[in-house]
């Protein structure tokens, strides 16, 4: 339900979302479960059958509780929208998620900071995925061209027996600013976790990624994947860690960082550790310039060099 006093503010954020390439209907359709927060104001919070959303405004943001009831499968994606429209601001989101046993939900989060000159967006999430529950989380950021934004998402995720957590954070539009990403997952027996981050660093952007997956249950599986493209003077440091601590646990750390130009700097630190003789964890990390053969392949199809590079970058970040 949208409160009349905040209707204009809601419209403003929908406009900003649409200008950033989003589909406004996702935030306006009353049949879609959604949560919209501008700075520290909760502009709309609509759950659905089997999905409870509770919020509490705080001084600099909001505390959110999102519960998916046992056995409930939420058909439509749930849309979350966090934004700061002024040039300056601080938004701190405390998110507590409980996807109960055998539930299923797909959450699409949009983070909108189109005018940021000095904005900080923090998210601290505590997430529990129940037995055989499935939770897909996609977070897409829309930043402006100023680069004055600092994004600090931090999550601790527990995936219980047979559960699945799949998350993708994409920061590929506008200027990243400073990103300090820290996601840690603990997988119980036969649980599955997939952490994916995609970022396109430009100008003076700084991207720090820390992904950790603990495969603590027998037969658990984990994938920590990072796809980073850097141009100008952007810098990135990606640390992907996976720990195989149980029999038949299988994990993989996969990091690709492409560097375009002379001044961008990429660093990758894959860490794999096995404490159980029947676990297996692998890693691959590739850092380098955009592959010349790929560029020439597309040029041989008639694309100009910059068009070819664009296709390759979009592919990596898709």
């Amino acid at each position, binding site marked *: 339900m949208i409160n009349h006093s905040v209707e204009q503010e809601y419209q403003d954020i929908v406009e900003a979302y649409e200008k950033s390439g989003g589909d406004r209907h996702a935030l306006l359709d009353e049949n879609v479960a959604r949560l919209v927060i501008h700075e520290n104001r909760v502009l709309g919070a609509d759950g659905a059958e089997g999905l409870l959303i509770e919020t509490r405004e705080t001084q600099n943001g909001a505390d959110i509780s999102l519960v998916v009831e046992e056995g409930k499968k939420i058909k439509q994606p749930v849309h979350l929208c966090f934004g700061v429209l002024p040039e300056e601001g601080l938004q701190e989101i405390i998110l507590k998620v409980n996807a109960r046993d055998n539930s299923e939900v797909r959450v699409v989060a949009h983070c909108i900071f189109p005018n940021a000159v000095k904005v900080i967006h923090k998210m601290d999430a505590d997430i529990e995925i129940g037995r055989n529950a499935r939770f897909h989380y996609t977070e897409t950021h829309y930043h402006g061209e100023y680069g004055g934004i600092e994004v600090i998402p931090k999550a601790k995720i527990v995936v219980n027996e047979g559960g699945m957590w799949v998350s993708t954070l994409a920061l590929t539009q506008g200027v990243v600013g400073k990103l300090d990403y820290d996601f840690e997952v603990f997988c119980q027996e036969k649980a599955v976790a997939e952490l994916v981050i995609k970022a396109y660093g430009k100008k003076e952007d700084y991207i720090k990624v820390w992904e950790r997956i603990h495969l603590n249950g027998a037969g658990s599986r984990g994938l920590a994947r990072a796809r980073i493209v850097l141009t100008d003077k952007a810098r990135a440091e990606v640390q992907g860690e996976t720990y195989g601590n149980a029999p038949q646990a299988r994990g993989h750390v996969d990091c*690709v960082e492409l560097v375009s130009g002379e001044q961008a700097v990429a660093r990758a630190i894959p860490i794999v550790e096995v404490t159980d003789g029947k676990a297996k964890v692998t890693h691959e990390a590739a850092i380098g310039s955009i592959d010349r*053969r790929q560029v020439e*392949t*597309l*040029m041989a*199809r*008639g*694309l100009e060099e910059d068009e070819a590079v664009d296709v390759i970058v979009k592919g990596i970040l898709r």
Partner: protein
Amino acid sequence: MLVIEDLQLKLNGRAIIDGLNLRVGQGEIYGLLGENGTGKTTVAYLVMGVGDNKPTGGKIFFEGQDIGPLSVSQRARLGISLAWQEPARIEGLSVRDYLRLSGRDADLEAVKHYLWMVGLEPGQYLDRDVDETLSGGERKRIELAAVLAMRPKLAILDEPDSGIDIISLPFILEGISEMNKQGSSVLLVTHNEKVVELAHRVSVMCAGKIIQTGPAVATSLWFKEKCKKCPHVNEPEEEHS
């Protein structure tokens, strides 16, 4: 259509391509046959303008135009294309989009048609990526489909049969014939004396030179008899007989 005159490439004082002359006619499948290391792929790359090397001598003309100063993109827009021996894998680029951009925004039906032409069922491939998940044979068939989609005036196919499975080979050969039927001339680079029999005319390369030219079957036989056990690979001899 394609005229190569006295082409030379010297690297560190060594002649990789040594005064090579070659003419590919309109609508012709022209085979360039030779053992590994004789310079065939280098010729293909110099014509397309890819790779690290530029000719150190000679000229390459396409439809009468000296293409030496042109970029890869410019050569492609003139109607030249190349299918690599080991095609690049491009993460996140779907087969659909790859064929579409190859065919200059070809519509979906056209994209499907080109997949069928190389024996791939569109429903199984359109949404897959042109990446490491494809087998070598699948990737090469998709590369051939991409060149078909371009409808180039000249298709340069570098070892189209190498590294592919026995099931894929007939589709590759059929695709080359189809390419020729739709009007493309083909420069077929291979070390396989059977595959080269698709060609109308064949030249044998050794040590950066053409040492024999003639009809496909006869030249293929000549190659088999003269070159298979010859130690002259990339070591220019005064004379070959």
